[in-house]
């Protein structure tokens, strides 16, 4: 039940990660999908999978007048795995902030699992955030809490009954392979273990989407692949994954859907693309 890498050569890791693309249940059939959406989903053809995330003509202008995002259209179907690439300042972070309603779009709509996040009443915002699990480059673990407490924290503060917390935390620990480290504190863990703790915390309330903001940015290549494999496994379990990254090797090797941002615009959206524009 734990095919996680605990040792072994890099080539073994790579072969286990680079599974052939037919493992993905992509069923692309022509249906009566709105034309505007099909053009923006990166597959070039109409997709029957339910869109879990839709950005429709989104522009975000900050109070200082800078356009962080311009006319962005993006449809992410349920179960998709999307790499978000682009230089610093290209708008990746703004896009992620819009998804969790940390910022509101200046124009256009952001729809998450059927909810227009801008029109959501305040008290429903937390419910939408619980559909998203977020993973950061700097982990954002609480240093005075153990691994188990860090993961349980996400459930405690959302009002989950106590008797449900322990089994859910145990499941998340098992999924990321940290059962043995459960009682340790973040500063006793390696970087990879810390990031796995953060992923377990992001997963513990069964989100529909995992958003990872440069999750491998602070990790060495071997550990980065370990984290990637974990995210791929989570994706196989049906969770949509949106990962912002600078790591060209990973993006190019995995041949997943790649959305490239430049100066706030989507300049490329292709399935099976590399980090850089092909050709």
């Amino acid at each position: 039940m734990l095919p996680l890498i605990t040792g072994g050569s890099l080539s073994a890791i790579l072969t286990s990660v680079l599974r052939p693309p037919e493992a993905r249940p992509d069923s692309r059939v022509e249906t009566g999908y709105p034309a505007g959406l099909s053009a923006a989903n990166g597959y070039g053809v109409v997709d029957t999978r339910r869109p879990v995330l839709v950005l429709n003509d989104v522009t975000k202008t900050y109070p200082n007048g800078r356009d962080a995002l311009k006319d962005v259209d993006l449809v992410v179907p349920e179960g998709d795995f999307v790499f978000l690439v682009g230089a610093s300042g290209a708008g990746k972070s703004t896009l992620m902030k819009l998804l969790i309603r940390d910022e509101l779009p200046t124009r256009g709509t952001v729809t998450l699992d059927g909810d227009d996040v801008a029109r959501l009443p305040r008290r429903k915002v937390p419910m939408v955030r619980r559909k998203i699990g977020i993973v950061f480059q700097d982990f954002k673990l609480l240093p005075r809490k153990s691994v188990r407490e860090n993961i349980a924290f996400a459930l405690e503060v959302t009002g989950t009954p106590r008797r449900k917390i322990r089994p859910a935390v145990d499941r998340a620990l098992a999924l990321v392979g940290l059962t043995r480290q459960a009682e340790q504190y973040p500063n006793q863990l390696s970087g990879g273990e810390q990031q796995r703790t953060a992923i377990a915390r992001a997963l513990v309330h069964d989100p529909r989407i995992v958003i990872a903001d440069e999750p491998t940015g602070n990790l060495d290549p071997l550990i980065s692949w370990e984290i990637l494999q974990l995210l791929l496994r989570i994706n196989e379990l049906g969770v949509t994954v949106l990962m912002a990254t600078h790591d060209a090797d990973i993006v190019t090797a995995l041949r997943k859907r790649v959305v490239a941002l430049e100066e706030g615009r989507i300049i490329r959206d292709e399935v099976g693309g590399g980090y850089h524009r092909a050709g």
Partner: protein
Amino acid sequence: MLSFLFFSISRAWQGFWRNAAMSLAATATMTLMLLLLAGFWIIQAGFLASLSYVEDKVGVVADLNDGITTGELQNLETRLSALPEVKSVEYTSKEQALANYRAQRAAQDQDDLTQYLANNPLPASLDVKLQRPEDYKAVAEFLQLEPKVAKVQNIQDTTDRLVSITTFLRTFGVVLLAVIGAIVLFIVINTIRLAVLGRAEEIEVMRLVGASDAFIRWPFVFEGALVGLFGAAVTLGVLVGAADPLSHFMVGFFQILPISVGSISRDVTMLVVGAGTGLGVAGAWVSVRTYLIR
């Protein structure tokens, strides 16, 4: 609801002790500020009592005609007592006035000149105590119109001056207390803001995992209340410890003044506990608000 309350309070308790250095620093600041507040409150109470004591000395003394009958006297006393400005009326007979005069002379070691007089030259009088010294004029005028009143001692000027001084001092005391209160408010709120700022990461994680505003806010509010209550407890401890030597020192002062130590200590206890809890809660409330959903 009950489990939410339990959650918030246990999180507050945990938060207080897991960040002990910051919490204790906030509690120390809270204690100092409450001591300042309580100290000024006590001084203010003594000050106001002193003013009342002085003002109580203001009264209207009316000398009566020698021929006044008991009936007329009772009638006058009844009508005087019915006036809203009047607190009490005290009658001094001619004999009593003479006895008082003689006692006063004897106390000053001077000869009693009245023993050479054939009859008692001193008038009987009514000593009218006032509700407020400002009422002096109204009562004096009332008495002047009475046929059986020979003379009303005029201390109008003195009274006016006294009233203007006490009014000024009262206002000054209130302003001073308000300024101290504002200083305490800002310092305590800023201290708690710093403590909350130190936990920004924790709050951010709560926000990101989808904690509702109430789940973010209330543990901090209870923690603020905890800081306030601990601060109040230490402050009261210090005050109780200081009360004994202080009251020895000030025993004479308190004996003269129309002031009850019981009511002061009750007021100060309520002030310290109320201000401590209130400031802690308010400080946490405004500090956390920055982090809630926009």
